[in-house]
């Protein structure tokens, strides 16, 4: 426990320094570059943002929009996992499947998820389904590619051990492939979830109504910088929490035997 307090305090110190710098910039008009009154608009003081934050929380406006985005991310990411994980595993196990699918993955993976927005809105209308489609497209490839890498890196001699014990295909997957690829899959999920959030925010900013990205665009249209800053802070907090909740748990579960590496 003692070893954790020091890094935590250091982290807090960095945040405090950043807030201090922010207050200073706001007060001096971005270090004298402009009239402090205009600066107030471009970069409001931290306490002003804090008050607004509290107001937005109380009214439920912020939370309801976070919830909208969160739901989209979780459903879209869940679908991406359901498709990407088995697909990656099959691609790793069968050269034929790999030869068929890999070019497609290579082709689609560099296309940013937001590029799908116009098509998604056309196909699914302005709503959750469009957002979910975009998230799936945006987070699928890191999940597939990492699962595939994991399978390709399985210790081949474990296959020999299972084959001599006459394991069938499913047993090989269950006893060897799935446990071996956990570290790869976790990093694939990390990337995928990060992409999912980025994509959903972008999609909500350019057209899909409601959600955190929508709040951002409303903030921009009404020149309300506080709202923009609040949204950024909320996003950071949400990502950190999700990281802690989803991946810490998974990683702790595997650390028991992972020390062998």
């Amino acid at each position: 426990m003692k070893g954790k307090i020091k890094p935590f305090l250091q982290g807090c110190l960095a945040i405090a320094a950043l807030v201090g710098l922010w207050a200073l910039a706001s007060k001096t008009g971005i270090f004298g570059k402009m009239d402090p009154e205009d600066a107030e608009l471009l970069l409001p003081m931290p306490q002003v943002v804090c008050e607004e934050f509290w107001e937005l929380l109380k009214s439920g406006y912020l939370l309801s929009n976070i919830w909208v985005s969160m739901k989209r991310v979780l459903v879209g990411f869940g679908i991406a996992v359901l498709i990407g994980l088995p697909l990656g595993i099959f691609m790793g196990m069968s050269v034929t499947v790999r030869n068929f699918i890999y070019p497609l993955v290579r082709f689609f993976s560099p296309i940013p998820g937001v590029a799908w927005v116009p098509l998604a809105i056309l196909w699914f209308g302005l709503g959750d389904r469009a957002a979910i489609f975009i998230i799936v497209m945006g987070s699928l490839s890191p999940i597939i590619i990492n699962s595939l890498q994991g399978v390709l890196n399985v210790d081949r001699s474990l296959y020999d051990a299972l084959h001599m014990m006459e394991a069938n295909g499913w047993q090989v997957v269950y006893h060897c492939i799935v446990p071996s690829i956990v570290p790869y899959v976790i990093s694939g999920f990390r990337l995928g979830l990060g992409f999912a959030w980025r994509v959903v925010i972008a999609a909500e900013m350019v057209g899909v109504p409601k959600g955190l990205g929508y709040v951002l665009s409303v903030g921009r249209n009404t020149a309300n910088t506080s709202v923009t800053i609040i949204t950024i802070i909320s996003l950071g907090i949400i990502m950190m929490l999700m990281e802690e909740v989803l991946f810490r748990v998974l990683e702790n579960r595997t650390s028991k035997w992972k020390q062998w590496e």
Partner: protein
Amino acid sequence: MAINVRNITKSFRNEEMERLSILRNISFQIENQEFVSFVGPSGCGKSTLLRIIAGFLKADEGAVEIDGKEIEGPGKDRLMVFQDYVLFPWKSVWNNIALGLKLGKNDKEYVKSRVAWAIDMVGLNGFEKSYPHQLSGGMKQRVAIARALVMEPKILLMDEPFGALDSFTRMRLQDELVRMCDKKEFTTCLVTHDCEEAVYLSDRILVFTDSPAQIRDVVCVDLPRPRKRTDPRFIQLKDEVQELVMETWKNEKERLS
């Protein structure tokens, strides 16, 4: 079970895609419950031969017959103990040993009693819940041996199983292997580079030439067990095997010069 190795030939392709002949027309028989060792210069193809008998590799020509039936792939009648253990790092000792029986959909109580027997056999009591990374090399190899024995194989294939262990651990495990083989429940093929180990454990020793491997000679060890490493006859046999291996190595040198 008896093993009949018939005219096995095997070559690999190297990086330049040239064919490298590794095993050339090898034939021999191993009787039921016999203990046979393969010794020879390193890289001559002993592991390749063992992997062909295990069914992991296919020979280019020839066949391996077990009790007259040609093998088609790996099977639980022939279990391998690998030099680098090949345990499942995410499974406890108990689960590593139980794996083969669980795959075969055996009754839970039966699995429990068999695993308890195997753990007892290799002296791993108290380590059931440990993970492989927590064990020493000797203990890992005990797990691997127990994992094989628990399935009551008819043939045990061992590829330099004690090669990575210190000499005291190696001698203890050799003694334990003698004790296990004494029950006459399986046939054993052992690849080793340790001539003393070969003489200590085997009924017969096949000495291979450098690759492409051929059988240079067969040494029968006519000593009762448990054997004494200091027995003059033991030392004589060990020297004989050593001499034969060195000789094939010398031939290689002459060929090169």
